[in-house]
């Protein structure tokens, strides 16, 4: 089997149908092989571009592996305290109502430390878009149990697997938020398969459109692979995500 030269664009007539890097990307990330978070970043940056809102976009980024995206996204960013992004975003949006304001958080950031902030922002119907990268662990600190860790999952602080009697049940953040009247758009996507990636991008687009329409709060929860925190080889990430997380966290839109 001959390997095709892929170091150059094709010589013959061809049309580029997908670019490797979103134009708002400023440099390399240093996340683990097979991590799902950079995929979500790409979608976010593409959507901002496609909606033509870049030059009025402000991001608020929490603490997790995605925190390092602050260095590589060409967007005005407040790197805020762990869990508090929706509160900071509220302050920003209220004094700059014409801006498009979003948060980028993890499950640890949003479902653990910051559950209070996201629920209150949602209940208030703040016109912001919150994005939660849910990998079911604190990736950045080495893979401990979060509020979204699924039952049975082994983490560094649930060595024998998450046990409901000991550690309780996972919290479905998107469902909780969808139960609040201020939440205008809530959806859950994933980045584990090409189809899910396409669907998730559509969700992000709708979420931002909701904000632009002034309709209320929007949330997109995105299931992302964390092979490191799951202690599985990178290539097994998507499968693990589908077998464990997706069963507990079904994909789709939760608002109508």
């Amino acid at each position, binding site marked *: 089997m001959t390997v095709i030269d892929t170091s150059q664009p094709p010589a013959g007539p061809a049309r580029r149908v997908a670019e490797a890097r979103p*134009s*708002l990307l*400023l*440099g*390399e990330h240093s996340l683990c092989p097979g991590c799902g978070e950079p995929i979500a970043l790409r979608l976010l940056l593409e959507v*901002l*571009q496609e909606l033509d809102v*870049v*030059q*009025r*976009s*402000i991001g*608020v980024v929490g603490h997790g592996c995605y925190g*390092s995206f*602050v*260095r*590589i*996204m*060409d*967007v*005005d*960013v*407040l*790197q*805020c*305290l762990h869990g*508090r992004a929706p*509160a*900071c*975003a*509220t*302050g*920003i949006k*209220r*004094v*700059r109502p014409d*801006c*498009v304001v979003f948060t980028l958080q993890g499950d640890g950031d949003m479902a653990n430390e910051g559950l*209070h*902030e996201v629920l*209150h922002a949602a209940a208030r119907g703040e016109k912001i878009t919150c994005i939660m990268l849910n990998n079911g662990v604190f990736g950045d600190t080495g893979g401990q149990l979060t509020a979204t860790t699924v039952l049975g999952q082994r983490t560094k602080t649930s060595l024998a697997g998450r046990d409901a009697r000991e550690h309780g049940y996972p919290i479905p953040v998107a469902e909780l938020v969808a139960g609040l009247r201020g939440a205008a758009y809530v959806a859950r996507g994933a980045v584990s398969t090409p189809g899910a990636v396409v669907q998730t991008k559509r969700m992000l687009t709708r979420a931002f459109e909701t904000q632009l329409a002034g309709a209320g709060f929007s949330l997109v929860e995105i299931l992302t692979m964390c092979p490191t925190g799951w202690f599985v080889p990178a290539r097994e990430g998507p499968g693990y995500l589908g077998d464990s997380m997706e069963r507990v966290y079904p994909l789709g839109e939760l608002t109508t």
Partner: protein
Amino acid sequence: MTLELLEGSEAIAASAIAAGCRFFAGYPMSPFTGLLESMSRLLPAAGGVCLNAASEIEGVNMALGAAAAGARAATGSCGQGIALMQETIAEAALNETPLVVFNMARNQQDYFQATRGGGWGDYRTITLAPKNIPEAVEHAQLAFHLADKHRAPVIFYGDPLLAQTRVGVEIRPLDFGPLPPKDWALDGTRSGTGKSRQIWTWAMGKATQPGPGPDRHWKAIAAKFDAIAEVEARHEQRYVEDAETLVVAFGTAATFVEYVVEELRADGHRIGWFRPVTLWPFPGAALAQATAGTRRVLVFELNAGQMLDDVLIHAADRSAVHFIGGVSIAESGLAFGELMDAPVIRDRILAALGRETRS
């Protein structure tokens, strides 16, 4: 000049708005509640936003967000509520957001809380401690000026008497001089230009324009606070020239001390007073000078002895320093106790005058 009879809280709120405060978020807690209620009534009419935060932590982070976006923004609370804000106040110091915090305290027991951080890392908070409502009205504006000037959080240290007493005051915008432009504020206009902005305690910068990183950034912050300490210390003093005894007090307590000192001077005592107007920076050099010729330095504060540390650090002769304050709380826990009273203070000072200075 037309005076309006305003409750302290209301006067402070109106003054903050006159200074351009356009965002406020707070959570009720006595005696801060009055300020929140006034803001919620007055701010919308001034084109601003006042939010009922769902907690102190949410409130201070909302205000931080608004300040990061360039607005004059504030929050407030007292005691436990301020304790909850410590992480964020430290963050504002370290990521250089000009946040104003109205600590309408229940008492003077939170001097350390205001002046020694208690958040995390090496930072300080400029702390204004007005002695009465007219000064509180001034400080409500000065706080925003200093915050913008230094891109640093400023704490306004009030108390129940400042919050709840009504006096005739005049509110008008005060001019403290020019300020640098807020070209660092996040407004989205630079997104996508390759020069997007960033507010980040770790100061890593963007890949295309690396920042100093935490080591250099935090050193620079520490140096900035050293520089602020050089220029922003404020104090007031009286009868220092001939005082054998100097009484040091802050906030409303200083007003009481001033009153008693006047009485005692009328009785022929060679006594004076010294008041740190800024708790941080503490006016140490001024105190050193003021105490150079005194035999006794009496420290009066309604707590177990907190400003005492700063007096001990700076007084010309440490052995001349005596503590005559103490914990004193109303039965409700929400206001000053019986020590905040001129006759009681007078007795304590006289008792100290009676004792010889120990070394």
